């Protein structure tokens, strides 16, 4: 019934968050926080979820932001929580956690345009910060999605009349416009020697082989479906029976567990390579370990990689980011023909007591020829009706006796440990080698992927004149393990992805990994070296970061200036009268009297006159003159200069401007 009252448009457009705008913002924040969840401590993740949910609920019910006094204690509590969890407030991880919670809090208190802009900016920053911890394709896609929705949220604020599809389309357009800039920066931005995000606290608890093995280590590991490494062969691929990826070599047995007795001394393995040769490039997933799983027998070297006399390769630093290595392998070559005395001594070591039955058996099987002795041990094991199982019974003391004579069920670690024990007890130098065996060829990318579930343990024995010879006792019980992998050898308790009924899932995974590998190789692995290579291919030999950085900065500044001027021109419509009017409004805007976008000149004049009665006459003159010129065209240059003179003569004193 009050429609008849004249509507005034003096007050700026309502700042209250409309429901659909609020939900856009909410979606942007949720998408931004989601990929951060794995990095947040439980309390911080829970707090974020709670705060976002609360805001959503309030929005749903049409309520405004909760009272401000509630937020301050929450900020302090968060600061204290971060301090307690990380021992510091600043730094990469605590900083990101703090920011994530602050974003959720900011969303909660969002009331006006400024708050909303801060929320969107924070979203952008957190999307960027995500790459400190994750650079893989899924995270990059998630971050991209979050960016798209943040743009959408911003568009929802600027243009409330737009619908969801328009917002997404405009957001995608904005992203696409940024693409050339992104590419230029990606290619040209100088790379630090070490990636910013490769700070070694990222790979602390990862699965992988370690330098000791006790019963159950490997069978636990193979339940993990995680990728261990991918290999790209430059030539032919080795057949499955040659796919032994050598990891820690365990020579020392204390009656319970096996350990390395390892001293890295060589830059490259020392032997005369012969026979077939396989060249490959390996992309190792971060595992926080120092050893490299190399195809038997490794040859060649790499910076920062050293070898022991047992051909085990180690890196100087733990591998905490995805790393690529180039190596060769000679599977047929004889190694260790002239083995060092102390290496052989290690390979004969046994604890002084324990496992008496096994020792007795070894004595029984021993002959004067090492080859024959090993052959008899193998025969004995092959005849012994041993079962290969993922769930071996728990071992008591004298684990080898228990396995050999009682349970007769075991996993590769049991077989290899029992074999090496028997060989040593029978006087033949032997050692346990752990690593990976097998590897699936991804039919999409042609790359070979090796997972934690391919972890394996086998044995090597040393024969006079022949050197080290591989014996895989597991093959005696389950020959399929070597040819077909784990899923061929065991039917129960397999990791999810290895189960036969999920073959289609494996196909999907192949597809995905092919794409992800391409991403890793092209994007994540683009480092300073490859940048230099790129520049060299364009004939720029002395690529140095600082001039490029300077040129980039100048080019960016110039481009931004050009865009700014262009946008300014477009907004002004290129009309002097408009510019004069905009200047007038901007001057008054500094006193909080800016013209509302929908406010007409005469309405503005009335409001100004009421707010600043002293200057009312001049202000009204300018407004009415503008209204006349603008809406009663054409106007002459004289009339415009009249207006501009009035504008120049206008003196606005900074004083209390409340109407009397």
């Amino acid at each position, binding site marked *: 019934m009050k*429609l008849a009252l004249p509507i005034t*448009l003096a007050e700026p457009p309502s700042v209250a968050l409309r429901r659909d705008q609020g939900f856009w913002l909410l979606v942007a924040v949720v998408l931004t926080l989601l990929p951060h969840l794995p990095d947040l401590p439980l309390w911080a993740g829970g707090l974020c979820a709670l705060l976002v949910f609360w805001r959503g609920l309030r929005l749903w019910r049409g309520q405004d932001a909760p009272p401000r006094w509630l937020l301050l204690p929450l900020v302090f509590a968060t600061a204290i929580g971060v301090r307690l969890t990380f021992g510091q407030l600043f730094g990469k991880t605590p900083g990101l956690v703090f920011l994530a919670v602050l974003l959720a809090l900011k969303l909660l208190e969002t009331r006006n345009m400024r708050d909303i802009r801060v929320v969107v900016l924070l979203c952008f920053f957190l999307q960027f910060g995500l790459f400190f911890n994750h650079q893989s394709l899924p995270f990059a896609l998630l971050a991209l999605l979050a960016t798209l929705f943040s743009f959408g949220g911003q568009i929802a604020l600027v243009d409330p*009349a737009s619908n969801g599809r328009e917002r997404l389309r405009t957001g995608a357009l904005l992203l696409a416009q940024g693409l050339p800039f992104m590419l230029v920066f990606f290619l040209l931005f100088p790379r630090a020697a070490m990636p910013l995000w490769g700070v070694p606290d990222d790979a602390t608890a990862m699965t992988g082989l370690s330098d000791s093995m006790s019963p159950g280590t490997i069978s636990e590991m193979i339940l993990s479906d995680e990728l261990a490494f991918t290999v790209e062969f430059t030539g032919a691929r080795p057949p499955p029976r040659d796919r032994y990826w050598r990891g820690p070599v365990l020579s020392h047995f204390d009656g319970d567990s096996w350990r390395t007795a390892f001293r890295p001394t060589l830059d490259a393995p020392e032997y005369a390579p012969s026979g077939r040769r396989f060249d490959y490039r390996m992309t190792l997933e971060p595992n926080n370990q120092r050893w490299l799983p190399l195809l038997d027998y490794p040859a060649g070297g790499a910076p920062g990689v050293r070898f022991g006399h047992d051909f085990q390769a180690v890196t100087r630093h733990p591998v905490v980011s995805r790393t690529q290595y180039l190596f060769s392998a000679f599977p047929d070559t004889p190694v260790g023909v002239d083995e060092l005395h102390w290496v052989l001594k290690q390979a004969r070591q046994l604890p002084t007591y324990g496992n008496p039955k096994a020792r007795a058996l070894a004595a029984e099987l021993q002959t004067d020829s090492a080859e024959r002795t090993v052959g008899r041990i193998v025969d004995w094991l092959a005849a012994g009706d041993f079962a290969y199982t993922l769930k071996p019974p728990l071992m008591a003391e004298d684990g080898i006796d228990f396995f050999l004579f009682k349970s007769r069920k075991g996993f590769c670690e049991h077989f290899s440990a029992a074999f090496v024990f028997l060989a040593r007890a029978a006087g033949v130098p032997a050692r346990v080698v752990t690593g990976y065996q097998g590897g699936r060829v991804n039919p999409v990318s042609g790359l070979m992927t090796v997972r934690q579930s391919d972890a394996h343990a086998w044995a090597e024995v040393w024969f006079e004149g022949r050197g080290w010879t591989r014996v895989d006792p597991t093959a005696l019980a389950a020959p399929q393990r070597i040819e077909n992998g784990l899923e061929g050898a065991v039917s129960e308790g397999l990791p999810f992805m290895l189960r036969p009924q999920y073959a289609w899932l494996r196909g999907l995974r192949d597809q995905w990994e092919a794409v992800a590998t391409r991403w890793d190789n092209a994007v994540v692995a683009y480092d300073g070296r490859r940048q230099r290579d790129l520049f060299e291919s364009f004939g720029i030999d002395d690529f140095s970061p600082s001039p490029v950085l300077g040129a980039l900065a100048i080019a960016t500044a110039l481009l931004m200036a050009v865009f700014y001027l262009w946008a300014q021109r477009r907004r002004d419509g290129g009309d002097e009268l408009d510019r004069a009017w905009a200047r007038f409004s901007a001057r008054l805007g500094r006193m909080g009297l800016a013209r509302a976008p*929908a406010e007409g000149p005469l309405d503005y004049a009335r409001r100004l006159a009421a707010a600043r009665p002293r200057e009312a006459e001049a202000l009204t003159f300018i407004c009415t003159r503008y209204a006349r010129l603008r*809406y*009663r065209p054409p106007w002459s240059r004289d009339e415009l200069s009249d207006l501009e003179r009035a504008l120049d003569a206008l003196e606005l004193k900074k004083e209390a401007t409340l109407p009397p």
Partner: protein
Amino acid sequence: MAHTNIERLLNAAGEIILGKEHELRLALSCLLARGHLLIEDVPGTGKTTLSHALARLLGLQFQRIQFTSDLLPADIVGVSVFDRESAAFRFLPGPVFAQLILADEINRATPKTQSALLEAMEERQVTADGHTLPLPEPFFVIATQNPSYQIGTFPLPESQLDRFLMCIRLGYPSRDAERKLLQGEDRRELIAEVDAVISPDDLYDLQYAARELIVADRLIDYVQALLAATRQSAEFVTGLSPRAGMGLLAAARAWAMIAGRDHVLPEDVQRIFPHVAGHRLHLTSDGRMPGRDELTRLLQSVPLP
């Protein structure tokens, strides 16, 4: 000259209808823009008085048609009767043949009767028994309507609401105005006493002048932006039609002329916009006509070009 006429008109009308200056200006701009006016309000708020007063002051023939549920089209248009002397049918024109018609409580009549009047409004002529008879010039209809929640009403369909250029509400008078009203004479007697302020020729001149007001390209841009906003907004079921857009501009011209300007400003459009657009839009949320809040928000969301 034109403006003094308007001033006199408004002053005289203001004597009779107290405290409703804004509504009087709206009603007058509707008439000057050659549009029909719909007044929607509860009984007793001065709808009839307003239209009667306008008729008197403008010197127009006035006819009042009280719409009831048993009113027939012939009661409005007229009937042919057999004249014995000339031995032929003679058409007896109905009350629609007047210059200003007050269609009181139009939504009480059946749709058939409503449409008889509404056709006359659109065509400005009446067809009865095969004869087409032009209606007098100028021809205004001021219809009053009770809010549709009152019982015994046939709400006007959208297509017919569109025939009315503007829809205004009078509302209760302010405290002061009501006091004067209570103390003063009966309004009906006052109306009977006043003389016409301007002649029909003057009115024609004013209507003509209203069409000659200057409309800058920028203002057309603005009107288009407003129309686009009603069409794009998710808040309304459908946007404004091109006819509504023309009406918007015509009413804004008339409003600007009443304000004594020879050019139209965005403010003029904004003032009349709720009254031109309000009865043509429906909210998506509940199908209701938009109220002041929704229309204000719409106006605020469209920046001046």
